[in-house]
């Protein structure tokens, strides 16, 4: 396609992207460098049905004057990025000097909110993505080998986890693992521990969320792989059967290389999706045991009575950076292939 027509084809989508994705990201970036103005507090008499007492309130007159002059707030540079609730540079170096072993250091750093969330997010990403790829591929292969008569209903059944709203899907599992739910109660009997709770144990909560993640995302991988399998040419497959190749060898040497670009695509999308894991944490009420980067942003924006825009913006920007870092190897590889193909 000539560059000129490509430009006009791409223009509407590009414009929408700049307006609705690009500009908000820039605005988020700018926001992350600002903190609130210093609060001007004054002592006043407060009365309510339970009596009167003197305490502080924010002085609105003085505050509104400052706000009018500088509506964005106080310039903070990278202050928000390196504070304790984010990268915590001071705390990390302090822990490093006072810790006697690497284990102690890691334990202390893992207790900081940002790193706590990062550890969960990465664990989730690293476990769920390969599982989704593998499971999706196995399901696609098996369904592809099944008689056409029953394939339709089976495919529908397989993609059901993706059709179910994430929140509903996680709530169903949430109730099943309740201490009085079918899984929770049976686990208590099985382990002979009446105080066992899947929801209050950190490890079990993580496992539950990861299993849920695999369950929810596999259908996507399956659908794409299944479509790709339809394009595998029959001739080399037949030839390899005549040559005596086993089923495994056929998959390894013919099917996989053929659908390789699709695997890269699914891996990319899964990685991005998994890095932003959020709904299951809300669905499972797992805030106590598992926090992700996306959840931190949500927490800063809605869970507190005071909205922390600067904190939320800083975490957002770092999430974007995190996704770019994770995607770099895959993107580099695709770029190389693209170059060699030309």
């Amino acid at each position, binding site marked *: 396609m000539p560059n000129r027509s490509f430009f006009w084809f791409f223009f509407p989508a590009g414009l929408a992207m700049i307006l609705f994705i690009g500009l908000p990201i820039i605005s988020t970036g700018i926001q992350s460098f600002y*903190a*609130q*103005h*210093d*609060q001007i*507090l004054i*002592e*006043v*008499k*407060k*009365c*309510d*049905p*339970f*009596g009167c007492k003197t*305490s*502080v*309130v*924010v002085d*609105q007159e003085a*505050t*509104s004057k400052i706000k009018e002059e500088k509506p964005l707030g*106080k310039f*903070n540079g990278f202050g*928000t990025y390196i*504070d*304790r*609730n984010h990268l915590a540079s001071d*705390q990390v170096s302090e822990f490093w000097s006072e810790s006697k072993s690497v284990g102690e250091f890691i334990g202390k750093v893992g*207790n900081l*909110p940002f790193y706590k969330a990062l550890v969960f997010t990465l664990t989730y990403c690293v476990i769920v993505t390969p599982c989704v790829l593998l499971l999706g591929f196995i399901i696609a292969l098996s369904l592809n080998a099944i008689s056409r008569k029953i394939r339709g209903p089976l495919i529908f059944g397989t993609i059901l986890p993706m059709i179910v709203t994430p929140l509903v899907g996680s709530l169903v599992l949430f109730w099943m693992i*309740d*201490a009085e739910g079918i899984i*929770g109660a049976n686990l208590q009997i099985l382990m002979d521990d*009446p*105080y*066992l*709770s899947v*929801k*209050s144990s*950190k490890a079990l909560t993580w496992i539950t969320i990861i299993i849920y993640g695999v369950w929810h995302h596999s259908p996507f991988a399956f659908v794409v792989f299944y479509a790709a399998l339809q394009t595998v040419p029959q001739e080399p497959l037949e030839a390899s059967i005549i040559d005596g190749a086993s089923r495994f060898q056929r998959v390894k040497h013919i099917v996989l290389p053929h659908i390789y670009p699709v695997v890269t695509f699914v891996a990319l999308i899964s990685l991005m999706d998994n890095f932003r894991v959020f709904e299951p944490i809300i669905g*499972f*009420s*797992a*805030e*106590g*045991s598992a*926090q992700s980067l996306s959840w931190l942003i949500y*927490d800063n924006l*809605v*869970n*507190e*009575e*005071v*909205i*922390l825009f*600067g*904190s939320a913006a800083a975490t957002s920007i770092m999430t974007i950076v995190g996704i770019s870092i994770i995607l770099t190897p895959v993107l580099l590889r695709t770029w190389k292939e693209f170059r060699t193909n030309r």
Partner: protein
Amino acid sequence: MKKILVTLLFLLFSTVANADCNIKSGSINILANDFPALRTLVETAKECKGSADFKVTHSAEHNKIAVPALTANPSEFSVRVAANSSIVPLMNADLIRPMNDLVKKYGKGIQESQLITIDGKVMAVAFMANTQHLYVRTDVLKENGIAIPKTYEEVVAAAEKIRAAGKMKYPYAAAYKAGWNLAEEFVNMYIGHGGEFFKDGGAQPNINNAKGVATLNMLKKLADLSNPDYLTHDSEAIKVEWESGNVAIMTLWASRSGTLLDDEGDANITAATKLVAPATVGGGNIPAATLWWDGFTLAKNRSDADAEASFRAMAHAASSKEMVAKAADQAVWLVEGFVPGPKSVGVIEAVKMGAKPYPMLPQMGLMHGALGSEIVEFLQGNESAEQALKDVEAAYITKAKEQGFL
């Protein structure tokens, strides 16, 4: 037949009320939490809407929408029904208007004690009081020869005895859901120990001390006597536990008693449920509970006509003697003419015992938020009490710096 009669009476009253208010213009849009007493109040306000537009949003997520919705100009809502804690972010951001002149002009039935004044400016009009207090199952206590507990130490002993008797696995319940609810339990228990959240009136935190440690240890003792899923249980979840007969002693909001004691569910449990005073802790003489008021505020970013219409409708409800007579068991109304019933015991005892109101400070929301997430690991047994309190203070300081309080 009785129903028809009641409806007729209701209609009669409402027509009278309509004539009372005589609102000719403006629009009224209310944002409120969702529990029976607030629904009653809003219905009463609607009676006198006259020819004004009337809309209402009842939502348990009201805290999350309030600030953004009132920041818009004109704001989405003209009235926000708030409480001690949720009025603070509105005042911090200057989103609600003083209503002294409206009170003078239209607030005839409102009592002086209902007015929430900040430096002389009426920022809210309260209509009900709330607190968290104990609920006990008299049948279970009697069976095990236990007197009604007055302190949390007695609650622990009683719950241990019930568990040892093999009667219940998890005899105690409170809303320990990680986040706002758990932090609220800490606030109650810390105040019960006589703690102060901030150093001498400033914004420096002051919880990493012996009282804080005692508070956490008591929360942990109670948590160990609760359903192991306690970190996911909010008020609604423990209400369900109670109604299924799994719990003998519970700390719950007074405002929840209405739905707890209604005709739904096991009649035996309902009959044996008794509302008693909040407990004290650690030898203190004030209850480990905070007093709350619920009241209405008026949005600043709304026209004066809307504010006037809204005030008149809400003031009608907040001074309605018919309403408090009809809905006497839904809440502890602060409205004139309210006769306290058996369901008001908790709040009235709390006031008598000198319970403190929830601190209405601009930086308290940040402390509450930090508590809700940082003490979880202690309850899970992964962290010492001192470390947890240190984490709370550190998380609070970081947020307070970003917000300009430190």
